[in-house]
């Protein structure tokens, strides 16, 4: 009887995850625990980082059977076939007010200028030996737009998806730490104190027609990003139409939360030790930081040019919000501006380049897909 007990015990051990646990799995479970601490203990993007971290832990449990049909394989299908990013964009659109952008269309240029971070990191990645597809996917981290980064990585470098998603979301949560030094370095005290004129009121007609026309123009020009832009603008139409409040409420609350759980958990599931623990991941993390800093620089410098051209009416600090990261980058502009001049309220002015950055990143992603093409799956 004792012998049978030992045999049963040995069988349980052999079937357990402990018997197949590698040092890589242990390290990645440790990474997951650190990310959980950052999310819950330190409050860095907890809604995103918590499920990413938990997914990372789950992905590194040996013999987890996630490759079998089931909820985890459905989540991974949604990640690898770009189902979730457009659904997230639907919710983002339903929460976005394009009013500040429509009221001051020249801030679109700041959203475009901040995309320079994408190309600085693209060139850096190619110099470091990444292929053109991999470099494009890495570069889009500089857009500071998680769903677009995942969308492009799934199409152009699926094997780097985990590292790219983690870099994008980690740096998005660190925007309040990364941006202010760059903003202060490239602006003078006098520029930071500039008070901008109040924005004109935007009519309901403009707010309703804009998402429709924007979808038609951008989708016809760049069909590969129709899903992203189309869902972003559909969500915005729900918000602005005035007769679609139930759909708007679902898109920005219930659906957004559901898809966030799936997208973030699925991103964590891509962080298995064999896919994540390599030299390329370290390079991607470093290139992501360069991309964010360069994007902030591009936006601020273009803001300075705009300030010179319009006779000092534009505060260059709003340029840094062009890196997307809605609405955190706009809040950073507000905080840095208010430190220089307590009477300064830049938030609504910074929302213009902020939402322009979302469109700019999607356009940059679409252009790269059109020019370079996705990898064969």
């Amino acid at each position: 009887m004792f012998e049978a007990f030992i045999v049963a015990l040995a069988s349980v051990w052999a079937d357990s995850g402990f018997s197949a646990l590698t040092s890589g799995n242990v390290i990645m479970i440790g990474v997951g625990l650190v990310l959980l601490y950052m999310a819950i203990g330190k409050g860095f993007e907890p809604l995103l980082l918590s499920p990413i971290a938990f997914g990372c832990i789950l992905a590194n449990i040996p013999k987890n059977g996630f490759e079998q049909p089931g909820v985890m394989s459905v989540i991974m299908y949604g990640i690898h076939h770009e189902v979730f990013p457009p659904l997230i964009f639907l919710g983002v659109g339903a929460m976005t007010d394009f009013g500040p952008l429509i009221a001051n269309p020249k801030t679109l240029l700041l959203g475009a200028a901040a995309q320079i971070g994408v190309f600085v990191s693209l060139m850096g990645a190619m110099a470091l030996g990444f292929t053109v597809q991999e470099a494009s996917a890495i570069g889009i981290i500089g857009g500071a737009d998680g769903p677009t980064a995942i969308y492009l990585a799934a199409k152009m470098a699926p094997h780097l998806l985990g590292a790219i998603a983690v870099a994008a979301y980690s740096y998005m949560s660190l925007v309040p730490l990364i941006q202010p030094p760059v903003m202060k370095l490239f602006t003078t005290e006098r520029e930071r104190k500039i008070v901008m004129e109040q924005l004109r009121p935007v009519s309901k007609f403009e707010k309703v027609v804009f998402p429709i026309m924007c979808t038609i123009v951008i989708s016809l020009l760049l069909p590969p990003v129709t899903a992203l832009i189309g869902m972003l603008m559909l969500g915005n139409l729900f918000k602005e139409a005035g007769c679609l409040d139930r759909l708007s409420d679902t898109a920005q609350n219930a659906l957004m939360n559901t898809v966030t759980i799936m997208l973030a958990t699925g991103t964590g599931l891509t962080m298995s030790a064999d896919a994540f623990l390599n030299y390329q991941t370290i390079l991607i993390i470093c290139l992501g930081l360069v991309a964010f800093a360069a994007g902030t620089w591009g936006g601020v410098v273009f803001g300075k040019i705009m300030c010179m051209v319009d006779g000092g009416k534009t505060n260059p600090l709003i340029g840094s919000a062009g890196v997307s990261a809605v609405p955190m980058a706009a809040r950073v502009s507000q905080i840095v501006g208010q430190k220089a001049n307590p009477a300064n309220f830049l938030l609504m002015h910074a929302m213009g380049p902020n939402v322009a950055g979302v469109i700019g990143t999607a356009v940059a992603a679409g252009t790269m897909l059109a020019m370079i093409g996705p990898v064969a799956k």
Partner: protein
Amino acid sequence: MGSVTTNPWLISIINMTIVFGVLIALGVLMSMIQLVDPTRNKH
């Protein structure tokens, strides 16, 4: 479609030009929407 070019400078310049072009076009679109806004006089 395959890769048009693998020159990172060329990719960046073309891409930035398109990003600026599309966003400028959107700016023009916004101005046109404002011009044809039938509710404009009410403000």
